[in-house]
């Protein structure tokens, strides 16, 4: 007990000095668990996040839009991989993480449980959802766990094209016909509030924040990040000439920030609990992919084993 206490103090001292923690270093069990949970949820979000956008790849309005969206969705698969790998350094297997996702034990960002009803939604997702993700991920490039921070650096380099791709779609629609502009407004109406929820519960309702800040897993709180998102995004909506669906949104000269209205946390918790519009559909799609890919995974292993054997035989002859 005494010993653990000493190790924990030393660990905290390293964090306070700004040192990074690497996979084989001693770490408190709770630090390890928290990271496994957070990194794997982040990975699941990247993977499930491909589904709403994948829905529009075959129906993209031009080849230019199609190659852009395809490349973005492919990037998200890569992000999932970087993050799964980072989580694996903490001693959890990829298969187990997959199982946790499919059985509902692990969560993913609730934003991906909303449907993509029109092409404008692809614009809104790139602009708002990737925009919100970038704010969170830029903070995480300085997180204390080395492999997580390195994955974030790689991801951040790729994200900015995602957001620009989305905003360009919005811009084009907003400069188009009345119907196209209305489509962009409708997408903003539906994705605005869920995007704000992406930063997680209010600080007073998120009991883990203090520990996460102390361990430098997070360097800013949910509310701070959310405020930053609103401050950055509101002028971008003005530029598009569409209206953020919040009558309370107003620049506050005194605070130097935008004030904004109350978030419907009941909706947030309902979606987290599995009652969002697409929760079942998303997990069903992931389950199908896992099950239908089983024979491929097995065949590849069998082939590799045979190849290895052939090499052995050749060497023996």
């Amino acid at each position, binding site marked *: 007990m005494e010993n653990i206490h000493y190790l924990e103090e030393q660990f905290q001292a390293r964090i306070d000095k700004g040192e990074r923690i*690497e*996979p*084989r*270093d*001693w770490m408190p069990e709770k630090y390890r668990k928290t990271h496994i949970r957070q990194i794997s949820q982040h990975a699941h979000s990247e993977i499930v996040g491909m589904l709403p956008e994948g829905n529009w790849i075959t129906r993209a309005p031009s080849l230019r839009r199609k190659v852009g969206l395809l*490349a973005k969705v*492919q*990037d998200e*698969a*890569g992000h999932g*991989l*970087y993050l799964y*790998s980072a989580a*694996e*350094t903490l*001693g*959890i*297997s*990829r*298969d*187990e993480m997959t*199982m946790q996702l499919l059985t509902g034990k692990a969560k993913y960002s609730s934003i991906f449980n909303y449907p993509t009803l029109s092409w404008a939604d692809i614009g809104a997702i790139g602009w708002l959802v990737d925009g919100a993700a970038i704010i969170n991920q830029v903070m995480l490039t300085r997180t204390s766990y080395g492999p997580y921070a*390195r*994955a974030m650096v*790689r991801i951040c380099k*790729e994200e900015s094209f995602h957001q620009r791709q989305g905003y360009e779609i919005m811009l084009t629609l907003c400069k188009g016909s009345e119907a196209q502009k209305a489509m962009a407004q409708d997408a903003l109406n539906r994705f605005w509030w869920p995007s704000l929820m992406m930063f997680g519960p209010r600080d007073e309702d998120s009991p883990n924040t203090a520990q996460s800040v102390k361990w430098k897993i997070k360097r800013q709180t949910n509310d701070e990040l959310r405020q930053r998102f609103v401050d950055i995004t509101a002028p971008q909506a003005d530029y598009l000439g569409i209206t953020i669906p919040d009558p309370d949104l107003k620049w506050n000269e005194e605070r130097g920030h935008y004030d904004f209205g109350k978030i419907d946390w009941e909706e947030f918790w309902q979606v987290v609990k599995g009652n969002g519009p697409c929760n079942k559909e998303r997990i069903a799609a992931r389950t199908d992919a896992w099950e239908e890919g089983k024979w491929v*995974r*097995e065949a*590849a*292993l069998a*082939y*590799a084993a045979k*190849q*290895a054997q052939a090499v052995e035989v050749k060497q023996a002859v």
Partner: protein
Amino acid sequence: MSNKTKANNEWPLFEVFIRSKNGLEHRHAGSLHAADASMAIENARDVYTRRQEGVSIWVVESKHIAASNPESSEALFDPAEDKVYRHPTFYELPIELKHI
């Protein structure tokens, strides 16, 4: 790493090293699962060189990497601390001397 949980029939894990351009060394880029080395190289190309980040890829199965233990870091690395005589500044020469 070694104490993996419930991996049923996973493809082995590979570490990926990328040379970003000729003249530079291969650097660790990350890791991925693949059935064998050639699949690992193909997958590495798809995830780590989508934007011309590389001209050459090395992969090695993670289990073949031996690593120093952080707990012996002091024993391994501290002895170098007081060997100032391994650095050029340890040797006192007049400043007017050139090219040395």
